[in-house]
């Protein structure tokens, strides 16, 4: 702890940061543009000028850029110094010389960092009387809108897009004050994190395109803390709503997970909530036609279906813990299915078991950034856990940070560190069947079939710890590669092994765990991370249940009279023949879901559930972190949370029925959670993922609207001119109106948006953090259910079932799932912008095999005619087929026949 003096006030601060950070942490309002906590300083904008004095006797001092000056003991600075003030005011005035008169028609207006800074410096009158420079805009695709006139040339966008996220299609062009930030030509931004430009750019150059179509000002929208539902990473988000529609998703800072950045799937995938595919009323199949019916009729219909027969419940890895648990309570443990096939379930349970047993570290996404050697074993993390992939990309820079430390260059001195690090080796090894987005920063990549990668993994484990089983007949260069990687991992202070279940291969995960276990013997910091497919896969694995195959058997035996399926599209798990068989064998299918999936069309009863923005619940991320999402939208009845529907079903049943203990008396989410804690003690900490509905700050609920939301007395006056009471929110500690407490010290899990006068943009986050880039003032957010077992001297148990090498076969190919960032995930593909971003499915073949334009692939559900594209480096005998896009249930590798197109075969 050191101390600096700002305008005569002594402020405790810390070393290793720059003066701008120190000023902001001390609560001072110092304007800045080009510095960003995740990107560091380059001193490009000259906005953060302050006066620094060399000692108590120095009265003159000198103007310095706060962001480029490190904190040192007893630094004396002045922000209020008249010359520094003038300097800053003239910088803003200069930036404004070319700034268009756009605020009223600018999506950034009201949350614009440039507006805030302009007000902060006091520049209010335009003196410049000459003409303004203008620019043409580009069409940057379905996610990001471009309005170049508003640029102040802070360079944040390219520094993020190119240097941080590894994109290469956004750059700066032209010269002097004509500089242009865009693409070489119009076209969709290709990077998976392009949406962050919306928050990174301090002006309205890059704005959220889907949001612009249903635009509302920041002050007008209700906010709620939420959790992304589009993969198992569990990034924290803020959902914004107005007039009971979801308008946008923003990043919510979580120091251990997503920090300042979200992937595009998470930011733009929410479109399914307002899509035409939403189910808004109960539907009952009558003579093969589904007709809307009132809620009471639906519940009566269910009571008739269930009378006397057995109810079996199918949950879903994309449904909240509470919803799954309510179903569990309705049908009882013997009839509760996780909604996954045996294969999927085995993989998830294995991942859970491996993580619980792992003697080393279970790093968070943020901790992964500082891993100095990373092995990615058979998982395209950039598609299955995008935000994790971005962290691994940063890990490749560890060596350059160490070089910078040695050269005594502070790590936030971005340009210098990047120059120093240009020659530094990366510690990232990517062993996958197909190319990944991390290849460009990898020290080495290797393309091989999943089984061969697993063998390599076991060989690496054996290299590290000879007690691990050896791999026989490994090719010589594989053995060399294994030795090299083993050496790199052993030499590292913080090694990390990442794998997952993309290829449905237990061997891959076992191999990854073996390596991490072997490493942990000498390096307790050795980390293991396993990627799971869905937002609550881990939660469901911890709950357990039957597999879909077991339900199929029961159905075939005629033992099921009603199947209650909650938020699960079985057609994505089972091949069409199996789905048809299941539907034929069970008299009545009840589907509770928010979106009309193909399964819904075949159900006897469909009940409209609320989407993540319309209810509250808990999800468990792949790192075992239970996190709560909160309601921002109050949908009209009968749309209600999944667990409320299950409860309504229970209430409609004969009260003397044996199962469902307690289920019918739950009043709110807290009741569900306490019942869950009793039934599953190992899930009990999930109750504390966020404060309960009874939480009060200064005796008040928290407000979910801003202090100046407009239109309260008119917005519903076309329905009824009398004032309506604000909607009740029994499951959350939020009031749905403007009334309530709000402040930077509120619990981090309850931050519904960032605003702290005079900071109205997302940069107001600085005020909510204890330290910039560090913990939130409001403490931890979410709670980890997996804890580290700790080091033990017992001999580690290594998996011994090493797979046999992959053999190329003459008549069939091994079809691997090509999991796509846009296209393979279920819910985001109901979002119009993501649909527009997804590319058409194609069959990837090794460069040598991709001869003809189209080929026929014979999968379980029949032949598929697909255009072929060559995939460089793909091993022989392997084909890549987009997961879930060609055959809906195709997610795991299988052998399949591949044919030339019958009519094209002759010509080619």
């Amino acid at each position, binding site marked *: 702890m050191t101390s600096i003096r700002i305008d005569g006030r002594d402020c405790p601060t810390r070393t290793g940061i720059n003066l701008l950070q120190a000023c902001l942490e001390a609560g001072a309002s110092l304007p800045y543009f080009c510095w960003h906590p995740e990107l560091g300083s380059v001193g490009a904008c000259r906005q953060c000028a302050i006066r620094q004095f060399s000692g108590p006797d120095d009265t003159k001092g000198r103007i310095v850029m706060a962001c480029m000056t490190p904190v040192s003991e007893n630094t004396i600075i002045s922000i209020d110094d008249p010359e520094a003030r003038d300097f800053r005011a003239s910088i803003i005035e200069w930036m404004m010389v070319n700034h*268009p*008169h*756009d*605020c*009223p*028609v600018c999506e950034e*207006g*009201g949350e614009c960092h440039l507006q805030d800074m302009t007000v902060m410096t006091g520049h209010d009158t335009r003196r410049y*009387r*000459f*003409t*303004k*420079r*203008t*620019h*043409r*805009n580009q069409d940057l695709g379905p996610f990001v809108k471009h*309005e170049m*006139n*508003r640029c102040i040339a802070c360079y944040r966008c390219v520094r993020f897009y190119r240097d941080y996220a590894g994109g290469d299609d956004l750059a700066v*062009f*032209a*010269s*002097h004050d*004509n500089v*242009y930030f865009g693409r070489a030509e119009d076209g969709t931004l290709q990077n998976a994190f392009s949406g962050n430009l919306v928050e990174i750019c301090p002006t309205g150059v890059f704005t959220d395109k889907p949001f*612009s*179509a*249903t*635009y*509302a*000002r920041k*002050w*007008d929208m209700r906010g709620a803390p939420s959790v992304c539902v589009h993969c198992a990473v569990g990034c924290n988000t803020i959902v914004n709503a107005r*007039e009971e529609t979801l308008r946008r998703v923003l990043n919510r800072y979580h120091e251990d997970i997503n920090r300042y950045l979200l992937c595009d799937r998470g930011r733009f995938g929410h479109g399914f909530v307002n899509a035409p595919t939403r189910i808004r009323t109960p539907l009952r199949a009558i003579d093969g036609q589904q007709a809307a019916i009132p809620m009471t009729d639906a519940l009566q219909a269910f009571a008739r279906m269930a009378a006397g027969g057995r109810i079996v419940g199918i949950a879903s890895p994309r449904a909240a813990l509470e919803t799954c648990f309510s179903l569990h309570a309705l049908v009882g443990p013997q009839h509760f299915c996780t909604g996954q096939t045996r294969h999927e379930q085995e993989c998830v349970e294995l991942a859970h078991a491996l993580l619980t047993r792992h003697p080393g570290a279970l790093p968070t996404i943020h901790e992964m950034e500082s891993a100095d050697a990373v092995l990615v074993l058979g998982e395209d993390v950039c598609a299955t856990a995008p935000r994790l992939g971005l962290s691994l990309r940063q890990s490749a820079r560890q060596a350059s940070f160490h070089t910078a430390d040695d050269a005594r260059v502070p790590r936030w001195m971005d340009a210098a560190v990047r120059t120093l690090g240009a020659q530094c080796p990366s510690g990232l090894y990517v062993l996958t069947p197909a190319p990944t987005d991390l290849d460009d920063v990898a020290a080495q990549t290797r393309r091989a079939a999943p089984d061969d990668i697993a063998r390599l993994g076991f060989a690496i484990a054996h290299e590290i710890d000879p007690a691990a089983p050896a791999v026989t007949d490994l090719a010589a260069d594989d053995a060399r590669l294994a030795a090299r990687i083993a050496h790199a991992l052993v030499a590292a202070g913080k090694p990390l092994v990442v794998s997952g279940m993309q290829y449905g291969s237990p061997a891959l995960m076992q191999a990854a765990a073996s390596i991490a276990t072997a490493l942990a013997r000498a390096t307790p910091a050795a980390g293991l991370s396993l990627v799971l497919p869905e937002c609550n896969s881990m939660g469901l694995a911890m709950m357990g249940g039957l597999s879909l195959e077991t339900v199929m058997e029961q159905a075939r035996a005629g033992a099921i009279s009603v199947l209650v399926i909650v938020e699960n599209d079985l057609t994505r798990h089972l091949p069409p023949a199996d789905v048809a068989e299941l539907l034929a064998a069970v008299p009545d299918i009840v589907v509770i879901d928010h979106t009309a999936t193909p399964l819904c069309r075949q159900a006897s009863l469909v009940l409209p559930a609320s989407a993540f923005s319309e209810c509250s619940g808990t999800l468990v991320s792949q790192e075992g972190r239970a996190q709560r999402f909160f309601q921002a939208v109050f949908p009209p009845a009968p749309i209600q949370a999944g667990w409320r529907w299950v409860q309504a079903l229970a209430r409609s049943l004969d009260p003397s029925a044996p199962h469902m203990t307690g289920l019918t008396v739950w009043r709110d989410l807290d009741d569900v959670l306490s019942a869950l804690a009793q039934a599953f003690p190992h899930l009990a900490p999930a109750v504390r993922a966020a404060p309960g509905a009874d939480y009060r700050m200064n005796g008040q609920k928290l407000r979910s609207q801003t202090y*100046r*939301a*407009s*239109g*309260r*007395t*008119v*917005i519903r*006056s*076309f329905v*009824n*001119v*009398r004032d309506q009471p604000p909607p009740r929110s029994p499951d959350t500690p939020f009031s749905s109106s403007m009334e309530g407490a709000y402040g930077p010290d509120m619990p981090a899990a309850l931050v519904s948006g960032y605003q702290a006068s005079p900071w109205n943009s997302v940069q107001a986050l600085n005020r909510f953090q204890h330290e910039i880039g560090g913990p939130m003032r409001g403490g931890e957010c979410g709670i980890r259910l997996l804890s580290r077992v700790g080091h033990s001297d017992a001999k580690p148990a290594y998996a011994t079932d090493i797979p046999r090498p992959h053999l190329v076969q003459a008549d069939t190919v091994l079809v691997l799932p090509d999991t796509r960032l846009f296209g393979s995930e279920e819910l985001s593909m109901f979002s119009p912008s993501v649909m527009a971003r997804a590319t058409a499915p194609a069959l990837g073949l090794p460069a040598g095999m991709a001869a003809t334009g189209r080929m026929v692939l014979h999968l379980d559900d029949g032949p598929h005619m697909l255009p072929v594209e060559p995939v460089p480096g793909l091993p022989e005998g392997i084909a890549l087929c987009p997961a879930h896009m060609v055959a809906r249930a195709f997610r795991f590798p299988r052998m399949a026949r591949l044919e030339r197109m019958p009519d094209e075969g002759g010509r080619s």
Partner: protein
Amino acid sequence: MLDTLRTLFLTALHAFHRRATVQYPEQKPYLPPRYRGRIILSRDPDGAERCVACNLCAVACPVDCISLQKTEADGRWYPEYFRINFSRCIFCGFCEEACPTYAIQLTPDFEMGEYARPNLVYEKEDLLISGSGKYPGYSFYHVAGIPVPGKARGTSERERPPVDLHSLLP
């Protein structure tokens, strides 16, 4: 006694004063153009809707009786709906003051009585007039940077034509 007589006298004297009562509605008083009465939405000199749906009037309104939703056509922002609940409006004129485009204006008309309260909820169709009201000649889009039909990029007031990115000339 004297006081009582004096009061009677003064009261009687009033009968001969000039009358201040205006015989409304037969006789209409003069109201200056800046009188704060019924609110209207005006149009650009070229006849297009002036309101750009910036939401500033709504947030300035102390009784929160304005609401609207932005939509867009050919790059031009305008309100999809624009609603004022006049049963709440206090005719303070803050909305007019906040409006950056001179779209929303208060007029000297105050004859808005209704028997049913819902009739005081005015939609955009009820608010929109065909002229430019008190501020003739002003067109926001000719000052702002974004192009709209009829005004190409770089042709607003005090703007240079768009930069040619391929030129390296200073």
